[in-house]
């Protein structure tokens, strides 16, 4: 532990002890506890490092007049300290008994506060990590209040009590290998849990009490209602999911009859928790490679035969969701039939064939479907489970999977009010479904899911017809349209041959998209534009079909139009979609059309003028997409002037400087990060193949030690001058400026990215020469760039290493007019700009130290434990001052 923190803790304890009212920030205590937990989990002994904590605990427990939040914290902290045997012994000698005695808090009138009860439970939970704590738990008879809290009026208290009860039985269960993983937290080893006689007696007594409680409380009583049963069921589910033999068997033995009785009683609210239990018991027994327990199987059979339709459907759905159905074909086939029954009734599709086993439920389900609310929720549950059903082995299904798809399609037609579907199925149910957005959304999602099921391809035309109807339907809400597009994309992506779709379909699709891209609602326009982008992506996978659907590039004009959209989300989506529709010819340096040039000009306008960041981010990403997919035949080091002026390469090269300069001066951090990504691509292109160049800037710093072998190949004269040329290009394109301005950016992710790239550049173009050798990259070291006299240029020049460089350069003012070998002149607003060798800059910036700093969280200093302790102290001082001098009180309000 930090010495400074240790020295502050006594004062912090004093402040906390003295605070009769809440702390000004309600997160402070939780963060303080996080810190102590971290220290304990790392193997430290909090009480030894900070003996003041013991005194603090005693004082709070004895005084009871502290703020309930502080008492809650103290109880949790006591538990944490007592979680090690050593800490336990230390506390046992003083206040442990009193701290965890509920009567003590009742006498102080504090037990009513849920905060105290939570502290008590979680303190116990923290402590129960070794047998001594368990013995303490048993001797103090804490099981009684803990069981009472299981049905507490506070959700949080009740849930914490359940967790602790489950932990107690599971963690200390005999016959285990001694480890217990608690929700991803540190794995503790039960080193001290022994099979000694007194311990096992204690365990049996706790198990006995809990079992008795479970047995007695499972069935609802008049005064408790269903709440207690629900809570007990939750506890049982927690226990059965984690219990091993023989504990699981004992528990099941205790509750099986009551559970059976509860199932028979048919309480709707208890169906989900009952299914959770059955599945927990079912899966834990199956993992031991045992045959599922007979009692569990019987319970499951009863659940899958409940008479109330919605409970029956809920139980069947839960069983399939549980994922254990592979071993139990009988129940699985049954659950499948139950879930298909409502669809069978509604759509009139023969999903159940000649199977009449579920016939007994048909009438009740049909009746329930006639009531609107239950109809919609039942249909949605059934629908949601159809995709996994279609993937099951054929012998479990009462019909071929394609029939299920047909039923879903016919349901979609019914819901959209398509009267042609009304001939079959149950018309009384139709009116409950027509226009239901919930069913529409659910069915469309299911349709998306069904695309990958076997044997569905033949239905493709029918599916797309329904989807286009949905897209055309004036009543479809934006979410329905969005889901229709998603389904359409999915079906087109799984289709082996898009050209198999008829011309009619293509025309219908084009018509509906043209209509929807002008929709009144931006949500619809955005989904449409997103669809066009993704469609291009799907179609690219099968190049030959690309022309078939995108014939005449009908989508590009629509997307260009969308660049003017008043909603920035739509503009951004249009730009992304345009990036997706970039044709292969663009990548290969072919001649560009006026339209393409116009797009680039428009995108640059957006980057410089759009007030919303989404669109500007998309522009930079467009250029990234364009650059990253350029063909490899373009010489990486070719000078921009060598390209033909009408080729896409030339257009790209001409625009790159603008993108870099606009992007790195942008006010949005993501635009800046994307600009640096673009700069990285240009660096990759310019420097790949050169000694020491590592593509990608994410190489961990640890790997970049100074003695790393870089390249055995001696660097020839030609390669060296190429390197200088490459660097010159980077300076000319504005890459170096973008990196340097990024380095001093106020947003950490920007600074970090720039720093990583600058290090890569430094290691490539100006590596430290091996001892005794002449500088191998002399040509590169002559390449210079200009640093502006204000803005980021000034920030760069203020970096300590740069100051020295600046002084040298200041003596050579004349040099300023002709900048570098390439003689580029840049003007800057105000301040004196100077020209400095790039290698000199790179080696003077202290990049490695900067990287260390930027790799840390931007709030690492102010979110540290030390900072927290200081905050508690100053907040208390400020509070005391306010009492004496009237000032404006800082009220926690809103943000």
């Amino acid at each position, binding site marked *: 532990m930090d010495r400074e923190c240790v020295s502050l803790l006594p004062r912090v304890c004093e402040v906390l002890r003295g605070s009769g009212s809440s702390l000004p920030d309600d997160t402070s205590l939780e963060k303080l506890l996080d810190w102590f937990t971290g220290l304990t989990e790392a193997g430290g002994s909090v009480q030894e490092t900070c003996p003041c904590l013991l005194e603090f605990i005693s004082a709070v427990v004895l005084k009871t007049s502290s703020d309930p939040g502080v008492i809650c914290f103290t109880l949790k902290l006591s538990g944490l300290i007592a979680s090690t045997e050593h800490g336990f012994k230390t506390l046992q000698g003083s206040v442990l008994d009193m701290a965890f005695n509920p009567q003590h808090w009742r006498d102080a009138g504090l037990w009513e506060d849920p*905060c105290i009860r939570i502290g008590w439970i979680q303190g116990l939970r923290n402590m129960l990590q070794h047998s001594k704590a368990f013995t303490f738990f048993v001797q103090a008879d804490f099981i009684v209040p803990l069981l009472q809290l299981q049905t507490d009026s506070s959700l949080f208290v009740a849930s914490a009590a359940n967790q602790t009860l489950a932990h107690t039985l599971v963690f200390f269960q005999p016959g285990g290998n001694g480890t217990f993983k608690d929700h991803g937290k540190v794995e503790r080893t039960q080193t001290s849990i022994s099979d000694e006689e007194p311990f096992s007696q204690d365990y049996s007594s706790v198990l006995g009490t809990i079992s008795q409680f479970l047995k007695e409380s499972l069935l609802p009583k008049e005064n408790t209602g269903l709440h207690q049963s629900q809570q007990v069921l939750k506890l049982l589910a927690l226990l059965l999911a984690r219990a091993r033999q023989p504990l699981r068997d004992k528990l099941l033995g205790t509750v099986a009859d009551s559970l059976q009785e509860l199932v028979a009683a048919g309480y709707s609210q208890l169906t989900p928790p009952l299914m959770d239990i059955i599945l927990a018991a079912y899966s834990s027994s199956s993992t031991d490679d045992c045959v599922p327990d007979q009692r569990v199987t019987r319970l499951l059979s009863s659940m899958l035969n409940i008479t109330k339709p919605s409970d029956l459907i809920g139980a069947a759905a839960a069983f399939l969701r549980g994922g254990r159905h592979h071993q139990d074909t009988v129940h699985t086939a049954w659950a499948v039939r139950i879930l298909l029954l409502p669809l069978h009734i509604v759509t009139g599709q023969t999903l159940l064939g000649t199977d009449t086993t579920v016939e007994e439920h048909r009438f009740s389900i049909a009746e329930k479907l006639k009531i609107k609310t239950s109809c919609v929720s039942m249909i949605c549950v059934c629908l949601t489970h159809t995709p996994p059903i279609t993937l099951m082995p054929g012998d479990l299904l009462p019909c071929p999977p394609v029939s299920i798809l047909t039923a879903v399609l016919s349901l979609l037609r019914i819901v959209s009010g398509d009267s042609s579907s009304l001939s079959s199925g149950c018309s009384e149910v139709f009116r409950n479904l027509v226009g239901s957005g919930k069913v529409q959304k659910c069915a469309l999602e299911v349709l998306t899911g069904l695309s990958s099921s076997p044997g569905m391809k033949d239905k493709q035309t029918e599916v797309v017809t329904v989807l286009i109807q949905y897209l055309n339907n004036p009543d479809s809400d934006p979410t329905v349209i969005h889901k229709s597009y998603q389904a359409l994309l999915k079906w087109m992506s799984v289709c082996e041959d898009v050209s198999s779709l008829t011309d009619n379909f293509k025309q219908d699709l084009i018509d509906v998209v043209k209509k929807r891209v002008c929709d009144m609602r931006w949500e619809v326009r955005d989904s449409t534009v997103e669809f066009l982008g993704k469609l291009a992506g799907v179609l690219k996978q099968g190049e030959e079909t690309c022309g078939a659907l995108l014939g005449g590039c009908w989508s590009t004009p629509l997307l260009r139009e969308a660049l003017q959209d008043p909603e920035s989300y739509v503009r951004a989506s249009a730009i992304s979609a345009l990036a997706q529709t970039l044709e292969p010819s663009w990548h290969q340096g072919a001649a560009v059309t006026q339209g393409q040039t116009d797009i680039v000009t428009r995108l640059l306008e957006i980057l410089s003028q759009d007030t919303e960041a989404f669109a500007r981010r998309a522009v930079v990403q467009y250029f990234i997409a364009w650059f990253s997919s350029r063909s490899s035949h373009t010489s990486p080091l070719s000078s921009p002037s060598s390209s033909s002026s009408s080729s896409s390469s030339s257009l790209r090269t001409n625009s790159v400087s603008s993108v870099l300069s606009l992007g790195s001066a942008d006010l949005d951090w993501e635009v800046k990060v994307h600009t640096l990504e673009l700069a990285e691509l240009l660096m990759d292109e310019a420097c790949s193949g050169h000694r020491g160049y590592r593509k990608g800037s994410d190489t961990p710093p640890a790997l970049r030690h100074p003695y790393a072998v870089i390249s055995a190949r001696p660097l020839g004269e030609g390669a060296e001058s190429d390197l200088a040329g490459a660097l010159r290009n980077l300076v000319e394109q504005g890459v170096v400026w973008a990196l340097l301005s990024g380095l001093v950016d106020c947003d950490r992710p920007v600074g970090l990215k720039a720093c990583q790239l600058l290090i890569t550049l430094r290691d490539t173009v100006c590596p430290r020469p091996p001892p005794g050798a002449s500088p191998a990259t002399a040509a590169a070291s002559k390449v210079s760039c200009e640093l502006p006299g204000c803005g980021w240029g000034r920030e760069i020049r203020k970096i300590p290493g740069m100051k020295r460089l600046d002084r040298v350069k200041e003596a050579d003012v004349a040099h300023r007019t002709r900048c570098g070998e390439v003689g580029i002149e840049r003007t800057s607003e105000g301040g004196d700009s100077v020209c400095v060798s790039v290698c000199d800059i790179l080696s003077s910036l202290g990049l490695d130290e900067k990287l260390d700093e930027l790799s840390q969280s931007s709030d690492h200093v102010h979110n540290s434990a030390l900072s927290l302790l200081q905050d508690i102290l100053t907040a208390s001082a400020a509070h005391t001052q306010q009492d004496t001098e009237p000032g404006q009180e800082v009220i926690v309000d809103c943000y």
Partner: protein
Amino acid sequence: MPEIKVTPLGAGQDVGRSCILVSIGGKNIMLDCGMHMGYNDDRRFPDFSYITQNGRLTEFLDCVIISHFHLDHCGALPFMSEMVGYDGPIYMTHPTKAICPILLEDFRKITVDKKGETNFFTSQMIKDCMKKVVPLNLHQTVQVDDELEIKAYYAGHVLGAAMVQIKVGSESVVYTGDYNMTPDRHLGAAWIDKCRPDMLITESTYATTIRDSKRCRERDFLKKVHESIERGGKVLIPVFALGRAQELCILLETFWERMNLKAPIYFSTGLTEKANHYYKLFITWTNQKIRKTFVQRNMFEFKHIKPFDRSFIDNPGPMVVFATPGMLHAGLSLQIFKKWAGNEKNMVIMPGYCVQGTIGHKILNGQRKLEMEGRSTLEVKMQVEYMSFSAHADAKGIMQLIRMAEPRNVLLVHGEAAKMGFLKGKIEQEFSIDCYMPANGETVSVTTNPSVPVDISLNLLKREMALGGPLPDPKKPRTMHGTLIMKENSLKLVSSEQALKELGLNEHQLRFTCRVQLQDPHSDPDTLHRIYTHLKSVLKGYTIQHLPDGTVMVESIVIKVSSSAEDTNTKVLLLSWSYQDEELGSFLSTLLKKGLPAGIC
């Protein structure tokens, strides 16, 4: 009894993240879905596992309603809808829908800035979430489904803030979100109908405060800025993208105009344009003054406030800069702060609350030596001022709203426990209604007496009238007899004959029978006659008949006599009556059990 249940998952005795579950008439509604900015892990979001396991939120919740765009009210929404999984309807007003993504993006940036933050939503998720939002108009009733309807009212707090009334049948709840009962520079005061909800869930941030007039605070603010500028200092005002920043901009702009000041005012990150755009778009949501003057001059088109460029930080001379983020966690506001902190001529004005772990929190508590990266120390010599410009109703405002809405119960959220306790007492005393203040996780249940509308058949009314009953009058409730039938989710009171007809049922008569043993040494016909005579004398005014088939009838009650097989002196009387004459039947059986008086012949 029907009841309304309210469980805060957040904002129960705290101001961290609002998230309140309401269960009314079988519907489950989530009110606000806020984020706590003080945590860097999952604790910043409400724990949805308390609602339902396995992320089945869409099945459980009927809708989510967001009151306004502040992150403590909407910050967890993309997490819930896109990461936990909720596909149902989300409601918020038009301005909230437009502005929410800006603030969510603002915060997403902060989380990216803080390394190691995981489980956070992306830009795409924010957009996908916003696309699911159904916008609300003020005073327009929106039907969520056949039974649930919601209606938004103006709340004043920030642009687009709304209070919302939730109604299922005749039961209703009003949730205020954050609101302000006094108009400010750009927004009006909250207003609601006298809708008499069963429950009013109100914020109570300033539960014990009677706030001084906003004019004083504004004057103070302008004075301080002016003094600082006059002495050549620079003023930094850290703000969140949208909200009170706009109010302060209007304030400064007007002041600069009036005083003819020349020092530049800057606003960072191009937000002025964006703000202008939204305030123009939603001009109807601003106050009357702004709306009136809008025709001549748009208050949000600032003459003196210019966009900020990073290179201006080092410019000499005085200036005022609005920069994000508002708590000085990171980014531009922090960078400017670091540069200017060392000069005592400069000033930083914190216009709102800052959570622990931020520099804003530290300087508000009076820390003047701040540890920075690399163990360096930043000495804060600049003047630090705190001026709360948040627009919440104070104690007086809350009471005023209760008076306006006339609720049957009040439930306090979004405030500190001790202050709530004080206000609770005041409300209960002044209005004689129950006031609750549940902690997070605690459920408050109130029973309601919903009036269930029932149609009455005309025939039944006519029959009632024919019997001389008064004309139906809604102000004078009275009892009506008939058969209540439920058909297609509506209730109807009809005559029993009509009910039989409508339901296609046959009429059945229900008769009670009972046996009474009697010692009477006469023949059976004699005993029957003795009974007849006895009853004649006892039951005056009743129709009593001795019928030739060997029975006595009193109204609908039939009495037969037979002798016991073993003992002819023991007579068994068989009584049978229809349920209309149940009282008389019971009386007769009791009477006859006592035997017949000796003197009867």
